[in-house]
């Protein structure tokens, strides 16, 4: 999967994007977030309060319960503030 981070999620993880294989046993976004939280301090900080993180899968806004599969583009970001 291609994983993208925007705004303060990018700053906290220190990454704008990375390629990650869907971890064993992970089937949806919330499972993937739980897995990311265990990957180090930057991730733990970025996903410390997952309730304020928004997610898009394949460039569509989705809920944390959305299923994931290899080949998906997953993006994490704060609530949008454009306009």
């Amino acid at each position, binding site marked *: 999967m291609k994983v993208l981070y925007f705004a303060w999620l990018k700053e906290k993880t220190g990454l704008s994007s990375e390629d990650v294989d869907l971890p064993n046993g992970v089937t949806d976004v919330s499972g993937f977030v739980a897995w990311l939280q265990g990957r180090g301090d930057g991730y733990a900080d970025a996903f410390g309060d997952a309730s304020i993180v928004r997610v898009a899968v394949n460039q*569509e806004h989705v809920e944390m319960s959305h299923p994931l599969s290899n080949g998906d583009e997953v993006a994490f970001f704060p609530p*949008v503030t454009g*306009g």
Partner: protein
Amino acid sequence: MIRVQEDDFDPGLELERLSAGNHGIGGVCSFIGLVRDIADDEQVSAMTLEHYPGMTQKQLEAIEKEAHARWPLDATLIIHRYGRLEAGARIVFVATASAHRDAAFEACHFLMDWLKTKAPFWKKETTEAGDQWVEAKDSDEQATRRWNKT
């Protein structure tokens, strides 16, 4: 039409183009969003807008399509800038052309409200106290919900 760009734009020229050659248009409503120099009582000298290129175009097209489905519109335009913008600079431009003034007004307001909560842009303010990410406002969520179909 959708344009996502770093460069500034010319509202007069865009308005001219939007209705050019179509004399069935009775009204053109537009909105320009500007960088304010004040936020939460702090002086803001500039803003930096980040976006999610692959998704932005797609989301704005979906929002524009929704407006055309809801109102009789002859033409619409959304321009959104990204990158560093000084106080007073133009950020966003939305324009709607219709035979009817209410349709133009409502669709323009709808487009602004929807893009505020659905288009993947993030603002970082530059203040004397340092840079900080702008937090999303509940009032924008509420503004979006008023367009929910009942």
